[in-house]
């Protein structure tokens, strides 16, 4: 895209979403779903996306009644070409929310869980499977232990094990790239509150090109081509962020063969819709596939990774980790149901005993989804130093990634969570 932008760094893709002027009816419906007010244009006129305010979440795309917004980045042909190249190991990194949505474009009922069929279809297409639930488990270990470190620092003055600073509380989750960009562009003072853990997609990419290349696929890192299979358009933006080239840096530092120009940890991102197009292009009918296993170490995962796609899932998984690390005992009941469900902001308090310090600690957590409707009061409280919470999970999309901007466009009505009241657009 050839345009002057103010909020993007070199290499980042500005504006994953644009509006087709010919299709736009100027009905204003999209503005009701945009979390950042990035859609401009008066009622009755062609609308446009202000890329500097846009966080690439794709909510306008899945909610426009006339199909006017579109993705500016379409890697389907590139991925197809890589799959056809026998010298390239194409790793498909499958996010949790994709497996319950990809059946739809193949005529299966909405919500069908098709993990086995998806493994089979993707293997037939030539992918090696890396289930992103595996990487979500890694994220949880990182994010959970980082939280414990921050909490112990805040409560007991504990210092960082290897020196360096420790971030403040509350800790925000960082696995939603739309939320991360929202903080960067709207509340930069809160950047230190974001968890320093990468998202599962980015951990998966780095692992595939380092450990995976050396120990699992036995190929050179630069011949690994990583493809995020995501329910999310913002993941396309995330993959383009220049800090996510850690496999290249690692390989170079270890003296391995690395090309002079850095390569990204994630080479391409296919949304659920993109994957359906790719499979159809390759004449693979996912619905007709038999269930298959993932077939690699990277397809193993726990239940914590699985629930990442829903609002509350990251928090629940992190709390389970924190519980085990802090108390040293496994959880008798493995579910924190207080953070489940579709309420805009959910909160819970968990009291546990930190065995290291021999003290009871009450951890207050909040889970926020649909940031357009719910996030401002929460961040204003944090900015004012009045937040009661220690750990806050934030997901941009209403309901979490399950309703992400890369999912099949639901034809049974666009506002499945709230927003069914009439809007009388005017200006």
């Amino acid at each position: 895209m050839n345009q002057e932008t103010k909020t993007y760094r070199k290499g980042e893709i500005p504006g994953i979403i644009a509006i087709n002027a010919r299709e736009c009816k100027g009905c204003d419906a999209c503005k009701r779903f945009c979390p950042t007010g990035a859609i401009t244009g008066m009622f009755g006129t062609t609308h446009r996306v202000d890329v500097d305010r846009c966080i690439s979440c794709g909510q306008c795309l899945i909610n426009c009644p006339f199909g006017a917004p579109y993705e500016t980045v379409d890697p389907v042909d590139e991925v197809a070409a890589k799959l056809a190249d026998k010298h390239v190991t194409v790793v498909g990194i499958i996010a949790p929310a994709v497996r319950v949505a990809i059946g739809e474009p193949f005529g299966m009922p909405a919500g069908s869980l098709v993990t086995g069929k998806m493994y089979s279809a993707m293997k037939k297409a030539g992918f090696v499977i890396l289930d992103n639930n595996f990487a979500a488990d890694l994220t949880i270990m990182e994010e959970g232990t980082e939280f414990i470190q921050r909490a112990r620092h805040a409560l007991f003055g504990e210092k960082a094990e290897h020196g360096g600073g420790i971030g403040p509380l509350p800790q925000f989750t960082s696995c939603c790239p739309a939320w991360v960009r929202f903080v960067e562009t709207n509340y930069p003072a809160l950047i230190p509150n974001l968890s320093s853990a990468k998202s599962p997609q980015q951990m998966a990419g780095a692992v595939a090109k380092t450990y995976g290349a050396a120990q699992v696929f036995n190929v050179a890192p630069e011949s690994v081509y990583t493809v995020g299979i995501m329910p999310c358009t913002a993941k396309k933006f995330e993959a383009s962020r220049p800090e996510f080239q850690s496999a290249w840096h690692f390989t170079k530092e270890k003296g391995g063969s690395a090309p002079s120009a850095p390569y990204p940890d994630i080479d391409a991102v296919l949304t659920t819709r993109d994957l359906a197009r790719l499979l159809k292009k390759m004449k693979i009918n996912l619905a007709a596939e038999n269930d298959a296993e993932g077939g690699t170490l990277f397809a193993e995962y726990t239940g914590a990774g699985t629930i990442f796609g829903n609002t509350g899932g990251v928090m629940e998984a992190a709390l389970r980790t924190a519980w085990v690390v802090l108390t040293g005992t496994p959880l008798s009941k493995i579910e924190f149901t207080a953070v489940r469900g579709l309420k805009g902001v959910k909160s819970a308090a968990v009291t546990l005993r930190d065995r290291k310090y021999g003290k009871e600690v009450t951890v207050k957590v909040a889970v926020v989804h649909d940031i357009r409707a719910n996030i401002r009061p929460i961040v204003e409280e944090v900015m004012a130093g009045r937040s009661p919470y220690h750990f806050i999970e934030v997901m941009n999309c209403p309901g979490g990634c399950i309703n992400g901007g890369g999912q099949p466009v639901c034809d049974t009505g666009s506002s499945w969570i709230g927003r069914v009241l009439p809007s009388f657009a005017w200006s």
Partner: protein
Amino acid sequence: MTESSFILKHPLRVRVFHYLLAASFLTLAVTGIMLYFKLLAEPAMNTAMQVHVVAGVVLTMDALAFFFLAFDRVVLFTKRTFTFSGNDIKWFAVLGGYPQKILLHKKVDVPPMGKYNAGQKLFGICVLVGGTLLILSGWVLWALPHAVPHGAASMIGSIHLYASWVLILFLFVHLFLGIYMWDDFKAMFVDGRIPYEDAAEKAPLWVKNDLRRLG
């Protein structure tokens, strides 16, 4: 009846309904065309859309008020427009004799008609069906575009578009013939009355079967 007799063809409530219908529909047609062809700069387009919405609300209120306050008229109008006979086909065969009269200055035999001739009946049906579709689809597109299924939204958009094109095209014919039939035009916009001879010539079945002398 004498030569100077007049017949009340359009009672006051019909005329008021028609004033508002004409004003709102013409406004909707003009602004709709501007919006469809994206003819103006952004603020002017927004104003056109606002005017379109206001005119749509007026049209809806007008239709609802007429439906509830003049239900007998609605029933009568519906009955008349949906009642057909062989004469209607014959009327269409000569197009009511209008092209011959207007273009060739010739008078041809026209089958006898009731209050509405076959062309007016067809226009009436379009107004009833098309108008209802336009009002309903317009409200969904304005107030609930985010809450209807995507397939339905684009279908509703198409219905709104095609129904409005049909009615706009008919409107030209309606306007032209309305002005051509000046007595009827005056009746609708002034006092509701047309001369007896005019009615007897253009709507003989109506005069014969439906009318009775008052006083």
